[in-house]
């Protein structure tokens, strides 16, 4: 249970962080980093076992009935991602200490970062798809809190919401997909799904499942057209961007695609979906990046592009392409993480974010300059750096793609070219050339700010120089897990004079050219500006506005504040439901003949009816109240006639009391006015008469139904003997059904309290006012 213990430890530390950050002082970030560092080391020790093809498994049951268990399984893919998350995570914690030194909410930042780290680790280490979903949503929430960290700014809050809604929405699609796949495969453990792969692929549900999983992955990994939340998320402080938006969270979607490739992949649908989305995102991301001049936005769009590259690689699906995707993912995490941190350090040290206003910083911050240049060169794909290896493999992958290889290669080269430009802009330009004035005097970053990017940049070199030691143990098993077959990516720096090398050189040269002409190019790509204006980002805005308009419109119509309209809808619904049911379900079995009533019964009935109608239409209050009383007395006479003396007595006394209450209280109210319009009256009359008719029919139908008289017979037989009373009604009230009566007097008591409570304070208040 080591892995599980470590994972829980991360969450526990997240819970503790806000309370212990202040006591720890400047060492806090360093202390917190120890845990993920240890985690990384622990994962590292598992590497040989994983490479040997035997994943480490630990299981903790959670809701076994639903198939949800915390099954941790460290296989190749999990190991690669786990190392990245813990390794980069440790560095980011240290970096955050330097970046946000003295910030009021530094403790919360650590807490959110650790929570995010734990969630992310959960996503990549669990084998159970439901458990993975649990962690998946946790990453969304913690990233919401992280993006909105500068909670005073409206822009930050909006960006946080945007990211949450898009990734959260994708997450819900994923949930449906997971549930469908789980019930289809009969298990939620991915490792056990392979056995049922044939059944999954043959099922009718395969298409929706694949689409739902892709939707979940594409939203999380910022694929077109869901990419726009990622640049928006740059509202977050830089440590967050470096962690979430370059090396970890945005890769969760890619992880998901890689993880499920063995189960869902290999079909034309899967490959087309991924390749098209990836290629589109790759090109668009790069083009949109060129338009930007803000450091972090440039990096964000280029991250979108890189994510597209990886998705495309997974989509092509050949061993070459998949290996390339995995290697590129690894390389990207190193150089993009480093570059984000460099960008943050520049911002921190100068207060300037616009690349066009930055230059010559190498003099003020030489160490950072070395780091930045190294990372940028890796991103540009120059040897002897990891980025170069990744790009070479990628070009090889597209060249050997089974279909559309020409187009894909062309697009990749084009993207690589623009990537070179972006690398030059973000990692090199700020440090070289003429020194430009900045908002405040540049100062070199301290060790906390330098450690993270420095180490990552160093790794860019080291992994490429000795790939068999530092890279191979990670990427080899990972691509093997993705492919579902043994795999050893060719990680050498030199393959001889190949076409890929030529294209690579072309891209570098072209990239430098674009860099030189960037002013013109920027104006040129403004053509694509519409994507931001009418594209998905504005679709989101319009959607949100539309939602709000729909919501308030609906509420204005339904919850309009008018009691009469509430009543109208309520009554029509009830009457309509009953009427339709009687009609549809054959309830209209009226008795065949009715026993006629006697003349005086007709007379009383007529009296009640007329009194009711008069009460309803009377213009004067007193007339109405008198008619109301008359109707009540009429009803009690009816009770007398039909053998219910108790009822009649009660009804008469209640009626009298009611009239007294009416007179005492309501005569203070103003006299009736005619305020409803004619149409309203007709409409109301219609619904009232309809509902009344419904009542009549119901009563007839019920009285026609033959029911047993067992109850009344039993009461009649047991009243005297068991209840010691001859008045059966009273015996029912105080004995057989005394609980009813207990409830009844409780209601009365409460009503009296209500009357008392409502009248007393009014008197007090009025006295106060007078």
């Amino acid at each position: 249970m080591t892995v599980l213990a470590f994972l829980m430890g991360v969450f526990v530390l997240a819970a503790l962080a806000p309370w212990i950050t202040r006591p720890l002082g400047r060492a806090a970030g360093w202390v917190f980093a120890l845990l993920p560092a240890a985690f990384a080391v622990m994962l590292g020790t598992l590497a040989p076992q994983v490479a040997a093809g035997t994943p480490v498994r630990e299981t903790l049951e959670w809701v076994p009935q639903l198939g949800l268990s915390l099954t941790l399984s460290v296989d190749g893919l999990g190991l690669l991602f786990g190392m990245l998350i813990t390794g980069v995570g440790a560095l980011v914690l240290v970096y955050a200490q330097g970046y946000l030194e003295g910030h009021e909410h530094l403790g919360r930042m650590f807490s959110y970062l650790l929570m995010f780290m734990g969630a992310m680790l959960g996503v990549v280490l669990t084998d159970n798809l439901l458990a993975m979903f649990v962690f998946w949503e946790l990453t969304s929430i913690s990233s919401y809190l992280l993006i909105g960290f500068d909670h005073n700014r409206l822009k930050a809050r909006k960006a946080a919401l945007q990211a949450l809604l898009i990734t959260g929405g994708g997450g819900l699609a994923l949930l449906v997909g997971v549930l469908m796949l789980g019930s289809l495969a009969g298990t939620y453990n991915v490792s056990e799904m392979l056995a049922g792969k044939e059944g999954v692929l043959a099922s009718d549900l395969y298409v929706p499942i694949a689409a739902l999983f892709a939707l979940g992955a594409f939203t999380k990994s910022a694929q077109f057209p869901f990419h726009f939340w990622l640049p928006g998320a740059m509202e977050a402080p830089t440590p967050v961007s470096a962690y979430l938006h370059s090396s970890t969270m945005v890769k969760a979607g890619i992880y998901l695609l890689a993880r499920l490739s063995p189960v869902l992949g290999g079909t034309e649908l899967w490959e087309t979906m991924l390749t098209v989305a990836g290629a589109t995102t790759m090109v668009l991301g790069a083009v949109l990046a060129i338009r930007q001049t803000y450091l972090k936005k440039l990096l964000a769009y280029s991250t979108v592009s890189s994510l597209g590259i990886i998705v495309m690689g997974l989509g092509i699906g050949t061993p070459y392409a998949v290996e390339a995707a995995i290697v590129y993912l690894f390389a990207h995490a190193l150089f993009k993480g480093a570059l984000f941190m460099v960008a943050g350090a520049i911002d921190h040290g100068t207060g300037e974010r616009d690349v066009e206003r930055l230059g010559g910083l190498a003099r003020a911050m030489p160490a950072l300059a070395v780091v930045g240049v190294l990372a940028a060169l890796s991103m540009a794909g120059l040897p002897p750096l990891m980025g170069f290896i990744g790009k070479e493999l990628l070009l090889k992958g597209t060249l050997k793609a089974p279909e559309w290889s020409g187009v894909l290669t062309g697009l990749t080269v084009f993207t690589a070219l623009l990537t070179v430009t972006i690398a030059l802009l973000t990692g090199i330009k700020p440090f070289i050339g003429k020194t430009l004035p900045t908002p405040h005097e540049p100062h070199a970053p301290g060790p906390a700010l330098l450690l993270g990017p420095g180490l990552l940049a160093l790794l860019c070199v080291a992994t490429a120089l000795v790939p068999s030691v530092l890279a191979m143990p990670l990427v080899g098993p990972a691509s093997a897990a993705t492919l579902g077959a043994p795999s050893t990516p060719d990680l050498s720096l030199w393959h001889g004079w190949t076409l890929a090398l030529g294209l690579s050189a072309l891209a570098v040269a072209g990239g430098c050219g674009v860099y030189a002409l960037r002013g013109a190019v920027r104006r040129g790509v403004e053509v694509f500006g519409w994507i931001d204006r009418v594209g998905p980002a504005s679709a989101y805005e319009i959607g949100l506005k539309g939602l709000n308009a729909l919501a308030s419109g609906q509420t204005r119509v339904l919850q309009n504040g008018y009691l009469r309209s509430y009543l109208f809808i309520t009554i029509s619904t009830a009457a309509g439901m009953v009427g339709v049911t009687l009609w549809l379900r054959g309830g209209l079995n009226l008795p065949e003949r009715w026993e006629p009533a006697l003349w005086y019964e007709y007379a009383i009935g007529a009296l009640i009816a007329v009194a009711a109608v008069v009460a309803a239409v009377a213009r004067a209050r007193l007339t109405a109240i008198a008619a109301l009383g008359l109707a009540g007395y009429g009803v009690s006479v009816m009770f007398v006639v039909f053998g219910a003396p108790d009822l009649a007595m009660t009804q008469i006394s209640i009626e009298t009391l009611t009239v007294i209450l009416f007179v005492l209280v309501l005569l203070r109210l103003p006299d009736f006015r005619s305020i409803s319009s004619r149409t309203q009256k007709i409409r109301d009359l219609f619904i009232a008469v309809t509902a009344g008719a419904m009542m009549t029919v119901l009563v007839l139908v019920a009285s026609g139904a033959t029911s047993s008289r067992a109850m009344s017979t039993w009461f009649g037989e047991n009243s005297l003997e068991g209840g010691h009373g001859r008045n059966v009604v009273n015996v029912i009230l105080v004995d057989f059904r005394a609980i009813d009566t207990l409830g009844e007097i409780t209601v009365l008591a409460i009503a009296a309290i209500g009357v008392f409570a409502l009248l007393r304070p009014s008197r007090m208040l009025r006295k106060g006012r007078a």
Partner: protein
Amino acid sequence: MNSIILRTATRFTLPLLLLFAIVVLLQGHNKPGGGFIGGLIAAAAFSLHALAFDPAETRRVIRIDLRTLIGAGLVTALVSGFIPMVQGKTFMTGVWTKVPVAMGEPLKVGTPLLFDLGVFMVVVGITLLMVLTLLEPEEKTD
């Protein structure tokens, strides 16, 4: 309504009406009537009194605070349900004994009658609370 006739009449009718109310309460088990109707008659008697004199005077005549009366009525009704539980029977099971009366056949007394008495008290209490609260002059009489 400061009528002397009404006041004098009320002085006589109040006890009579109360007596009638109690008769209705007691005979309710065998003839039409019962705690509810009896309670209403008693309340009507006191209401009449309140109209003839004034609510404060009526409250004085009743002595017991109406809120207490309502509570006591509820407690009585509940207690009538608990009595059988002392004997190990279910809540609200009727328990009956015969009370010998000097003349005539012995009177049967049982918890349902106690329950009805509770009903009676609550009804008197709530009706008077409503009526008196409404009749009372506009000042605090707490």
